[in-house]
């Protein structure tokens, strides 16, 4: 049987990821003004944690999860899409953090740099590089 791109699993996953992505953008653009700056940062950071943890979960669960079975598109897997959503949310959290008025610019810059370097060190040391067979 020939494999097709448009089967129920891929369609549902794509719709879910698009809906979640639109929801994050809507949350960041429209709703976020109604909560305090610290809650904005915390909520976007929690969104990032939630998406990346789900990506990690599906990465461990699924053996073959590409959404588009075409050359050049095989990187687009369920975990990758969730990681991208997490990346968008994390960037939003960082932007909100840098816009906080309760902290001085020096403190914000120092925290951002230290946090970034810490994430690099922890990520490189604790998480293994994925194997070539996926």
């Amino acid at each position: 049987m020939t494999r097709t791109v448009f089967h129920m699993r891929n369609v549902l996953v794509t719709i879910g990821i698009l809906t979640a992505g639109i929801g994050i953008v809507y949350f960041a653009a429209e709703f976020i003004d109604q909560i305090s700056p610290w809650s904005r940062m915390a909520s976007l950071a929690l969104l990032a944690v939630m998406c990346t943890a789900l990506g990690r979960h599906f990465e461990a669960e699924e053996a073959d999860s590409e959404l588009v079975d075409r050359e050049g598109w095989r990187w687009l897997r369920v975990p990758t899409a969730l990681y991208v959503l997490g990346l968008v949310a994390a960037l939003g959290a960082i932007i909100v953090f840098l816009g906080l008025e309760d902290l001085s610019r020096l403190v914000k810059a120092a925290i951002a740099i230290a946090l970034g370097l810490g994430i690099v060190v922890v990520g490189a040391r604790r998480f293994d590089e994925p194997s070539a067979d996926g």
Partner: protein
Amino acid sequence: MASERGGFSALQVAILAGALLVVVVGADVALNRTISLQVEQADDWQTIGQIPRERSDVRHHDTLIEVNRSDEVDVRIVVDNQHLATFEASYDIRHHTERIASGPLAADRLGVSEERFTVTGDTLLPDSPEEGWDRSRPVRVDLRLTVDGNSADAWLDVEEVPR
């Protein structure tokens, strides 16, 4: 699914983060249901009066605002941390008068009609108006924000910036 190291699994972390997200946003929205009166000073907005949306008590804030003579001050209304309307306020220091003009307001967001939403101001004149403004003393401007019977009284101490 437990992780190999005995901690939380990725799915548990995701569920925990989602639950925390709901708690953080829900608590913030619940705690910040306020109507605030803010005034602009040095490109920053300061809250000078605030009404909790669901309580009748009023919190007061006072602030010292420095303006030039006959300068204009922007006063704005913030509902649930969301800026809705800017009210133009001008203070004629020489004649001890001030004016607050109401601007367009998204009354539907408040759930009240625009007629029930007022901002009024009154300048407390110096002791001897005919002597002119004593520049060593700030002029106090009392403001009252009223929404649906709840009022927030705030005041501005308007002081001339030394040139």
